[in-house]
């Protein structure tokens, strides 16, 4: 009888046993690798949008996966709340003031959820605590105060973009403010603009001043009379100042140098005022063009911001430049050594 037929039961037994052992081994290794029986510490966080966030998404810290998202839901305040866990061996690194940052790729290669550790070493945050994200003001506030360590990205382009981004944001804010101000200036008669309010107040104040002067006229007349008396008094201060031997005469007896200087200053001032008037006339004429220019500038800055963000998220550029393989030329000289 053939060997295989004679020992069919044994062969089939070994055949099945090896498969079962292999399956069990793979399952055990999977359990160890995926920490099926390890302790996880759960936390919550909030984001402005759920785009790019998904259940099972990993949370990375310095390139290591330290946890995963378990739940995502929309709150009554329309924030996106996530529940996530941190592995037991990384939980001691969760200091107070730690934040989460969600970065997404524009090319659809998914995104990253990055954990940034609090700057001060404290006791680990208790389980089920809230860890803010950089999407919301509370997270950004911690960064502004320097309470969180934001790791510098290794990628050169990303680093440049990181540096440029706040500047662009400030420029954008400035341009927006300028735009708002110029729009208000351009429409002063609307009544509800700031300049309109100022004009209204000025008219009101002038009226009030007129009424006040009308009421105060008797008192002012009395004061003027007193001044007249003072100048008429031969022993008074004014008389002494006007005395040809007095200090004022001495001060003014300088061959008109002081007067010349004052006159020069006044001439310069008059010239400057003329220039200012000319400038204001030109500015008023060119205001629509300036507004248009500013608006175009603002749009250009926004477009540049998008381009830089695209560059930063572009995995092709993030990976650097692929080294080229130098292919040997197929054309050979006729007078080489072999020939």
């Amino acid at each position, binding site marked *: 009888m053939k060997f*295989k*037929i004679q020992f*069919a*039961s044994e*062969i*089939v037994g070994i*055949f*099945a046993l090896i*498969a079962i052992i*292999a*399956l069990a081994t*793979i*399952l055990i*290794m*999977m359990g160890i*690798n*995926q920490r099926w029986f390890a302790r996880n510490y759960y936390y919550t966080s909030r984001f402005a949008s759920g785009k790019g966030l998904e259940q099972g998404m990993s949370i990375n810290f310095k390139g290591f996966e330290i946890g995963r998202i378990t739940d995502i839901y929309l709150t009554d305040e329309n924030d996106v709340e996530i529940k996530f866990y941190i592995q037991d061996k990384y939980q001691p690194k969760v200091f107070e003031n730690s934040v989460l940052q969600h970065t997404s790729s524009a090319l659809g*290669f998914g995104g990253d959820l990055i954990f940034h550790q609090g700057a001060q070493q404290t006791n680990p945050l208790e389980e089920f605590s809230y860890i803010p994200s950089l999407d919301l003001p509370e997270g950004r506030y911690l960064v502004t105060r320097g309470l969180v360590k934001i790791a510098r990205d290794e990628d050169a382009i990303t680093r440049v973009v990181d540096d440029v981004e706040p500047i662009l944001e400030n420029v954008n804010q400035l341009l927006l403010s300028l735009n708002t101000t110029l729009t208000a200036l351009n429409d002063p008669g609307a009544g509800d603009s700031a300049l309109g309010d100022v004009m209204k107040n000025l008219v009101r104040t002038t009226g009030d001043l007129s009424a006040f002067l009308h009421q105060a006229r008797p008192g002012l007349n009395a004061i003027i009379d007193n001044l007249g008396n003072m100048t008429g008094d031969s022993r008074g201060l004014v008389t002494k100042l006007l005395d040809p031997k007095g200090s004022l005469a001495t001060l003014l007896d300088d061959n008109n140098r002081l007067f010349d200087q004052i006159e020069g200053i006044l001439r310069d001032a008059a010239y400057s005022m003329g220039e200012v008037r000319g400038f204001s006339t030109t500015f008023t004429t060119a205001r629509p063009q300036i507004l248009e220019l500013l608006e175009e500038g603002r749009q250009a800055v926004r477009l540049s911001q998008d381009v830089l963000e695209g560059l930063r998220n572009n*995995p*092709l550029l*993030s*990976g650097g430049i*692929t080294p080229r393989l130098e292919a040997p030329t197929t054309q050979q000289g006729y007078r080489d050594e072999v020939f």
Partner: protein
Amino acid sequence: MMAPVCKLREFLRYLGEASIRYARESLYAAGYVFEIHKRTFRFLRHIQPKYGYRVFIMQMLFTGFEALWIIAVISLALGALIIIQGRSLLIQVGQGTLVYPILIMVITRELGPLLTAFVIIARSGTAMATELGYSVVSHEIEAYVSFGINPIGYLIVPRFLGVTVSMVILNLYFNIFGLLGSFIVTQFIKPLQMNEYVDNLLSYLTPADVFSSLLKSFIFGAIIACTATYYGFRVERSPTEIPQMAIKAVSRSFILCILADAAITLVYYI
């Protein structure tokens, strides 16, 4: 005017008769499958423990053990190809680790069970249909019945169990060779770190993948065994019917396995 009406009537009659024929065949096949499962439960509960055991072992030997080398070659080559080509391509876009989920998706979830099923259909499906067809032609089945032996309980159930269990075991081997053996092959072409490879692979492999793969192989095994034996018994009297039925068994098994694969995959993703 009358000719088109007659043609339409003939067409409708043909359609009706074909529908009735297919409905009858489907009902008969459903009854056959039910009978196999009923007898299998009896076999497993040791109501008829003796006479089918040797057939079961021999079926596992022929279907499982003897097909092992074919499965090993296919899975090793497939796994190595995926690793080499996938890594070369994905590294260029900075996504080198995506090769592991792709490997699991292709080897474990899709091609593992399907290619194993195709090998078993080609080897054992045809063999079973032919063997049973000859048994019918040579009146062996009538002899079993005359001795009071149920042919389904004696001939079909051990084959059904043998093919199904072999299919599951061969699929496990396909995964082992495809996922781990291909790593060894890759070392000769593009070396990888063993720790890195195993850690990444195990971190992407989920119990759902393993369960899905085992479920598919179990269902494919059952489909192949039922289809091959069904068409083996469909032979009536002439030996020329045997190859016809064997071809039908193979083609129907392929179609049913692919449909079942699509259905299971849909359920997995829904």
